[in-house]
């Protein structure tokens, strides 16, 4: 589609202003309300509150009615407000050198920074309990700084990686994850349950937990439908930035009634748009994917390439891992199903062999002709090589996923344009 400069400018403005999905608005409204309630309950009513890393069995806290946030969710909020540069500098001033990962730590920076009062959604209250992977040293250090109970989780190494893991994860998880590995996670979850019960002042109701674990399964089934619609519709019905925000916004509340209902509304809206041929970019020409992490610091960045080339981003890990990584059927013991759900969570997207096999499957499913890989994702090079071997060009993207200080608009625009013109377009023509 060719446009004159004025049209293009007005189109660009429309794009920037445009939120295509109703659920984007309801999600945001809910989250704000939920977080304001959480702050009130914790700050005014003194309710105990927990902070977790990304691969922690929240379902337990859901069942015990302990309010919590996930560090990386809040970090995403910091990034979206373009405050990641500021808080990254804050950590540097506190002595934490700039090569240390800011991914989860920005949340703590917001908590610790007493000077700047302009914080995302009012800021993070002090937690009573923190649970993350043992490997996340920042959380242990920060929990100690604020005097919170810290429960670390040691993840057993995946000694027998299986390439087609996503085909086995729903029903064959005992074999896939290994009984010995599930056992050791389960033992640690029992410790987490005790620590959480002490804070909640009540005992875990295992039937309620089972309900929650199952509700997560059903929510991910809805995401499975969304993935299918996006993959099979003639053109992309929803912008990827909105999909990513929606998926993660729901995932951080997985197990709640709200999350299930929101996922259903999301599925309905995507389906409605596809059925009615409402495309994110009617001039869609080239379908691209994110490999590894998403560009949270600038979700709107790629709109520019829709206009210029009809290039759309159709796929990221977030929706697909929700579908392929979380579902656990047939559990006798819900705590054991949880142990399996998280024992390899996110690692399967990195581990050489596993990450590539899945990325290739995803690329085919979503009919992509190119991809973008943000540097800093371990295992990324192997995945990029594998995709290139399949004839899918990959741009190795040299910015931090959340740290706004690494962003240089002109340079990065030029890089992407060059990639599309010189690699994607020729590859798509082949």
């Amino acid at each position, binding site marked *: 589609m060719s446009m004159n400069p004025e049209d293009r400018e007005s189109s660009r403005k429309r794009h920037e202003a445009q939120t295509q999905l109703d659920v984007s608005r309801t999600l945001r409204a809910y989250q704000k309300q939920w977080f304001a309630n959480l702050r009130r309950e914790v700050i005014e009513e003194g309710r105990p509150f927990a902070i977790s890393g990304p691969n922690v069995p929240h379902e337990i806290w859901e069942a015990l009615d302990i309010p919590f946030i996930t560090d990386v969710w809040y970090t995403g909020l910091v990034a979206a407000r373009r405050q990641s540069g500021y808080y990254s500098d804050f950590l540097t001033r*506190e*002595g*934490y*050198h700039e*090569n*240390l*990962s800011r991914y989860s730590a920005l949340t703590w920076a917001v908590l610790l920074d007493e000077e700047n009062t302009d914080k995302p959604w009012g800021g993070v209250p002090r937690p009573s309990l923190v649970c993350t992977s*043992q*490997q996340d*040293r*920042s959380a*242990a*250090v920060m929990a100690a700084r604020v005097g919170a109970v810290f429960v*670390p989780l*040691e993840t*057993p*190494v*995946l*000694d027998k*990686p299986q390439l087609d893991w996503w085909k086995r994860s729903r029903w064959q998880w005992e074999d896939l994850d290994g009984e*010995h590995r599930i*056992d*050791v996670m389960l*033992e*640690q979850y*029992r*410790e987490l349950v005790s620590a959480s019960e002490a804070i909640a002042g009540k005992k875990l109701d295992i039937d309620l937990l089972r309900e929650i674990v199952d509700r997560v399964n059903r929510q991910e089934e809805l995401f499975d439908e969304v993935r299918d619609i996006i993959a099979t519709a003639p053109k992309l019905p929803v912008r990827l930035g909105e999909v990513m925000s929606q998926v993660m916004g729901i995932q951080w509340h997985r197990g709640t009634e709200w999350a299930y209902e929101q996922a259903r509304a999301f599925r309905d809206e995507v389906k409605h748009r596809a059925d009615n041929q409402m495309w994110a970019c009617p001039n869609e020409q080239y379908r691209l994917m994110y490999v590894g992490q998403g560009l949270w610091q600038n979700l709107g960045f790629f709109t520019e390439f829709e206009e210029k080339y009809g290039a759309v981003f159709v796929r990221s890990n977030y929706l697909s891992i929700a579908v392929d990584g979380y579902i656990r059927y047939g559990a006798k013991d819900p705590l054991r199903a949880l142990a399996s759900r998280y024992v390899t969570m996110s690692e399967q997207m990195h*581990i*050489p*062999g596993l990450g590539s096999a899945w990325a290739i499957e995803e690329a085919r499913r979503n009919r992509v002709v190119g991809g973008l890989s943000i*540097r*800093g*994702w*371990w*295992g*990324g*090079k*192997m995945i990029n*090589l594998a995709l290139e071997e399949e004839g899918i060009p990959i741009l190795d993207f040299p910015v931090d996923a959340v740290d706004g200080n690494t962003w240089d608009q002109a340079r990065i625009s030029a890089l992407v344009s060059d990639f599309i013109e010189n690699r994607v377009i020729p590859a798509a023509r082949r």
Partner: protein
Amino acid sequence: MPLEAGHFAKLKAHYTDRARAMKQARAQGGRIVARVGSAVPAELILAAGFMPVLVAADRSRAAPTAAKYIDDVVPPETHALFEAAAQGDFDEVELLVLSRVYDKLYFYLKEIYRQGLLPGLPPLHMFDLMQNRRAALTRYNEDRLLDLRLRLERAAGAPISDAALREAIVLCNRARAAQRALLDLRWQGHIDGEAAMQAIGAGYFMHPADYAEALEGYLAQLHAGKGAARPRLLLATAEPLTHTTLHEAVERAGGRIVAEDDWWGARAPGGDVSLDLPPMEALLAKYCFDTATADSYPVEDRLAWFEEAAQRSDVDGVIFYIPPSDLQYGWDYPRLRARLQEQAKPFLLIRQDASTSSGRVHLAEEAANFIGQIRGSRVDKAGAAP
């Protein structure tokens, strides 16, 4: 003193040429099992009839194959070890046992082997011991140790007898005792940091019997007079010191490194493996709770050791080596630094990578300044001109 020279020369030769002992053993028909990381029990390997050899990263070697497959966020040590595998360094080895901190190396090697690109690679065994005191992990750790034992028995084609295991424990304890004696002499100022690193590090490559003999022989000759009074420094490192670059630079600048918080130096021996417990139980206790590794051994224990050492009145200053590749230690650094500031203990932070030439230049300058400052403040305190 030709005898001293002889023993030390032997240790140094094995420290420098790390494949030497392995090649000698192979030439005599010996069978090799390689350990990746310190948290793999040499005792079990010995008791199964193999010679245990540690594989160490050589950062000075170019690593083009690793650079092709492995991301920059993965520690350079992993790049170097992968490169060694790609260059065929392990082809003579019957089994490669990797400890927990090298899980990424395990994944890369396994996948590249699967692709048929590393045909000479020996079988791999992931020994996933979790170095943590929590009760929830005990059963898992016990099973991992038993798994390793069974794997070694399978490779050997015979079970490991209790007598053989006991003998191996006694032998390795002998080497540890000699290392602890060396560390004492070092604190007393009888030996430089660089020489100490070489004498300790050789133990990872030599047969423990040869090693204990050589080290004991060296120590017996070591009672000579103290070296000149030089600022005594403690070294904390975010990265395993598989080399002596830092020691050389600091000692050339006039300091002396009396200990380092690293498994290549002062943290190598730890205590003995108990002979009062059943051997498997004793090994588990040793390797879970008293074996320094790259970054994960009970971190509280690690920091406690450091703080105790740093507080000593005979430590004049602390050098932190936290190169850009660090992803963990830096989170603890501000707290450790604050403690030193409270105690008015001088410290220096080195952030440049000492494996690069510009990093070495920077290191030499910084070390010289730091040592100069410590000397100056001593003179101030003494109230006299030099």
